[in-house]
């Protein structure tokens, strides 16, 4: 048996990047999409950079955000299910 399991390490790096960096990035895209629309623009001119308004009011933006957030949640759920399956070999 090899001392270093390169295939496991390779998988940890690739899936680690997908889940650990890709999902937060998708969450960020969702936040960005959520902020599209008239309200955010108005808040920006009024409150400057201190505005913490998240919902911009654009319907398309909200739908886009919902899709992003759902993908993130689904990916987490699937990941946990897979880990449970691997961690409990069939009895």
């Amino acid at each position: 048996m090899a001392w270093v399991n390169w295939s496991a390490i390779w998988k940890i790096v690739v899936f680690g990047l997908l889940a650990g960096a890709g999902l937060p990035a998708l969450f960020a895209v969702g936040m960005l999409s959520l902020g599209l629309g008239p309200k955010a623009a108005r808040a920006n001119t009024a409150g400057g950079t201190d505005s913490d308004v998240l919902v911009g009011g654009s319907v398309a933006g909200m739908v886009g955000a919902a899709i992003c957030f759902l993908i993130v949640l689904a990916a987490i759920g699937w990941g946990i299910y897979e880990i449970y399956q691997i961690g409990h070999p069939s009895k």
Partner: protein
Amino acid sequence: MLDKCTLRPVFQKVLRVTYGHTVSNDTVLVLVVITALAFDFTNGFHDTGNAMATSIATGALGPRTAVAISGALNFVGAFLSLAVAATIASGLVDTSDVTLHVVAAGLAGGIIWNLLTWLLGIPSSSSHALIGGVIGSTIAAAGGSAVEWHGLVSKVIIPALLSPFIAALVAAVGTWSLYRISRSMTDGARKHGFRIGQVGSACMVSLAHGTNDAQKTMGVITLALIVNGTLPKGANAPFWVIFCCALAISLGTYIGGWRVIRTLGKGLVEIESPQGMAAESASAAVILLSSSFGYSLSTTHVATGSIIGTGLGKKGADVRWNVLGRMAVAWCFTLPCAALTGAAAYGVAYGVGGTFGVVVLLLILAALAGLIYWRSRGTKVDHNNVNAEWTGTVAPPEEPATATTAGV
């Protein structure tokens, strides 16, 4: 909580097993299980910071809410996988060369090292403390040939060396892309939005911690049961073991290791909420993936790697390399020092001999734990001052009642 039906056959079998000393093994077994759960408890409070330090530092969660959520998720996580427990129970030492005295001494070594590093506020690895302790006492008892060196290197040492770098890479990529994507957002909206995301990712780290760290204690208790002949070689952890370990680690987490939380949250880098989210997502992903491969890696090393990575991924972030240097030194020393402590503990247990030897060992352990706790009261860190400005020490200076200028 444990019904007698589960335990009675265990003890009957224990009594039947012949053993080096003329002792009642059930007493020793129970003592070992209690010690293991005590270790699990210290593991919980030593490592709360890994999951929650950055959320507490950015104010995404109140300190006490954070430790409560983390405790609950650690409990759930402990039930998620058994791969790491199998590594510890059957992959590190030759179970036929190990006695209950060896397991007890190994645990004692791990606990002492864990408490010492906690006193100093160093986020060292609880896993390495435990594994080091068990290996040290095994070598003291049966020599180096009883150690499964291949398992130790391929499933513990190599993951320990690589995981912080992988976590740092993932966190740096995550941080860079979060700032890139959110660059058109206002500062206020960005802070608000990523705080929400950070709470989610911190919860994932707590869950991941349960899958990796709670399993180490399950592995040790399973090892003790195998050594005793209660379970066959290569057996999985029984349900009551999983349950007790989950409970002990979540209670420990809830108590909160404020000293370590402070070093991780304030000492290394000043962290904003997008960085906190990137760091925690990276930690959660790396730990969960490694758990499912059965790699007993240090959640502490991963969390530290992620925090460093998130500092590197953002322009102008200031990483306190001297704090990292101090940690890295502690990391290198953890395995050998815990091993020496474990070996010394075996010397005590074996020297005195019998059930009494284990009792003496545990009394010494309790006395040392008490002493360390007493020392820690002098420089208290709790939920009130955990976020105080970093002035180079773990314990913030006393509330400056007389000082006129507060901070720089």
